[in-house]
């Protein structure tokens, strides 16, 4: 009956390896540095949105409007840059503020008026889609004028110079080592059980190796994509929020047992509105990146992205009922979803089968998770 615990933790890396091997065997270019760099940009886009969705799902709510919102916010910025000739930073800031307002409004409606988030954000999905098409007049709006470059267009086309990439990698590895070390000292001072030194060291080594491998691959092509930095910053922030702040604890508590959370003095309404506000931020970031990645705002930008984000969370072990999930899982889930799509595109799989394959993987992942967690809770 008892399933070894590590199997659950290894499920994501295993699945990734299987997917990666499959595509690499069918099409060696899959592991080429050009394709991997492209994959990383796509991963940054999906991952950022998934991290925002993760915060919403933790409270047991949902956001179906994210995909439409991504299109709308990217579209607003594009129109301001291309048609109104605004400087790109001002355009991005304006669109960003619009996202904050819209998501705070939705959060307030859900929380104060007690309208289910499913309904409000379903309404948002349709309304934002309509607004989006109005804003871009059903046309194609480039993110930069002529052949110029601006911050907007550079979001997904800028790559760090190789030395900068290395420096950043070294700094990250050193920082991680220092944090781990400090944590060990503090833990032992407080009498907290510690993992063995060998284990801590090998974990650090594994992460550092992966980091350097990543940088090597990227530098082979054009360097570490800037969008990966956006994802990393988002992931770091969300990790800090969920693991190291009262706000994060409250998200888990509300999703786990809202009544008990309220009776523990948690300002449930404020926390949930906060989650939607943060979702607005990730929607804006994703909107800018994905629009920049397409080169222009067109009517299909953002289509179904909310479902990719939800799928990434769920594959990564986030419970739709709330109260369970981790940043690492979400990142892994996003990587799986991206690798699948990227690999299938590389193999020129027809769109019909792309949809079917993604849906199947999602269903399979959740089924497996349900099975594994049922066994885990039984023993």
């Amino acid at each position: 009956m008892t399933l070894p615990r590590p199997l659950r933790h290894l499920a994501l890396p295993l699945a990734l390896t299987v997917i990666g091997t499959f595509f690499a065997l069918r099409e060696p270019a899959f592991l080429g540095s050009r394709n991997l760099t492209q994959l990383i940009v796509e991963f940054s886009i999906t991952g950022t949105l998934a991290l925002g969705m993760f915060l919403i799902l933790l409270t047991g709510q949902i956001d179906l409007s994210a995909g439409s919102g991504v299109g709308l916010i990217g579209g607003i910025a594009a129109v301001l840059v291309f048609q109104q000739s605004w400087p790109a930073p001002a355009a991005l800031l304006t669109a960003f503020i619009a996202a904050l307002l819209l998501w705070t409004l939705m959060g307030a409606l859900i929380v104060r008026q007690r309208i289910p988030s499913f309904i409000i954000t379903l309404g948002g999905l349709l309304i934002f889609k309509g607004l989006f098409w109005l804003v871009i007049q059903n046309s194609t709006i480039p993110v930069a004028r002529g052949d110029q470059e601006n911050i907007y267009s550079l979001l997904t086309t800028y790559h760090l110079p190789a030395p900068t990439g290395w420096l950043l990698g070294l700094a990250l590895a050193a920082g991680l080592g220092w944090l781990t070390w400090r944590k060990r000292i503090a833990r032992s001072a407080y009498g907290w059980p510690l993992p063995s030194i060998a284990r801590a060291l090998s974990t650090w080594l594994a992460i550092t190796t992966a980091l350097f491998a990543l940088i090597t691959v990227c530098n082979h092509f054009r360097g570490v994509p800037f969008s990966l930095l956006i994802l990393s910053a988002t992931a770091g922030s969300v990790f800090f929020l969920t693991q190291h702040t009262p706000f994060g604890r409250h998200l888990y508590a509300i999703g786990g047992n809202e009544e008990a959370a309220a009776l523990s003095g948690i300002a449930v309404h404020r926390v949930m509105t906060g989650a939607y506000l943060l979702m607005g931020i990730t929607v804006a970031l994703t909107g800018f990146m994905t629009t920049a990645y397409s080169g222009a705002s067109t009517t299909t930008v953002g289509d179904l992205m909310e479902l990719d984000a939800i799928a990434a969370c769920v594959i990564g072990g986030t419970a739709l009922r709330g109260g369970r999930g981790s940043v690492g899982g979400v990142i892994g889930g996003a990587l799986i979803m991206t690798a699948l799509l990227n690999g299938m595109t590389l193999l020129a799989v027809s769109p019909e089968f792309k949809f079917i394959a993604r849906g199947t993987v999602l269903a399979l992942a959740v089924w497996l998770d349900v099975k594994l967690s049922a066994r885990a809770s039984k023993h």
Partner: protein
Amino acid sequence: MPAVLTARALVKHFPGVVALNGVDFELLPGEIHALCGENGAGKSTLIKLLSGIHPHRSYQGELFVDGRVVAFHSIRDAAAAGIAVITQEFALIDELSVAENIFLGRAPRRGLRIDWPELHRRTAALLTDFGLTLAPETPVRALGIGQKQLVEIIRAIDKNSRVLVLDEPTAALTGQEAASLLSHLRRLRARGTACIYISHKLEEVFAIADRITVLRDGQSVAAFRRSEATIPLVIRHMVGRALGEMFPERPALATAPPLSANPPTPPTRQPLLAVRDLTVAPAAGEPPVLHQLSFNLHAGEILGCGGLMGAGRTELLTHLFGAWGHRIHGEVTLSGLPYPQPTPRDSLARGLAFVSEDRRRFGLVLNQSIGFNLSLASLAACTVAPGRIDLHAEYARNQVLFDNLGIRAPGQATPTGGLSGGNQQKVVLGKSLLTHPSIILLDEPTRGIDVGAKQEVYARIHQLTLAGMAVLLVSSDLPELMGLSDRIIMLAAGRIAGEFPRAAFSPDTLLAAAMGHPAAS
């Protein structure tokens, strides 16, 4: 006359609890037989056995219907044998009409279609028979509670039930509705229907029952004909048990030093919590369920609050904490400061903590660890700039409480969902204590936990008061209430039915007060 229903030597165990420990019971045709007993005496368990909810083989002992041994494997079996249970939760479908409800699943048909004229004609006849002036098409949603109850009884009777089990049928009825229900029951009795009648209202029991069986601690301790019994006699049998050595010795309040630990004690002891004339309704515009409550709670004191189910004890605690109800009038002051609009958040900030009777629902986030739950209400205390939890300080702080409370688990990281009731209770208690309350409201703190854990919880509550904390303790367990409290107020129907100093504690007086019979002593 042979009994229609007989139970012999029924024994039913739940994990850690003996709910029934040898119950004998006999119901004659055309008799109304009352079951009396304190909360937890075993009445509900007995009903669940008789109605097949606890199936055959989940208990020991035998059941007979008309002298033949029966084995109920399900509610359907019991219903087929003619036993119908009318509970407080109605088994009616609100959206359907009276006629549809009465004939649910057995409506007269014409071919494949329901024969509506026939259905309504038969329903009308039944309703007239019961003296109800209702149209058969009336949706059940539109009925009052008393009428709903009658509709359920009509349905049971029309399905040829010979035994009606009524569990607190008048709990939610007005005096008039209750009187009308009792007269219907008398008419049914005259037709030969037997009836098991459970009520906390002893006047009602004496007004209608032919015989009375008293349950205590899962045993049938006495059976009387109504003519042989008196209310005080029944109460005495309901409570008659000795207090164990379970409870910590409490210093008599009069001789207790007036908290010499805190030197500047004011000359007149100001209560930590003062409640004046408190009247509370479930929501604005609804009739109140708590009426003009007034009492004080002092530092270092345990004030017990007793009463029967539905007397308003939980409502009182949850209202004081800010989690329930709409205050119509009255005043609550904390250490002399008025507290007009309580919310859980403000209460915790002002040193008022609450431990719910339903710890799994209101107390714990079950999929999270012990440490997570302990910290939940007091994260601010271990948060350093800029809004970061100092995980190590948090761990150390929790660990002190973890050890102190004697939580039995491998460590703080253990999820709370799998802990025993006693350990879960300690976690919930610990969560409250970490908010450093001066007043703690405890609702049934030992419900569903085993004897050993109970004793630990008692000791812990006692210690809290030594540290100057004030405790308002709600308990259905009279020995527990008497063993722990310095003073007891008894609630009955949302009012204070009596206040007793420790010297005046006796089970009979307390229970009599709870039943609204202060004269029974």
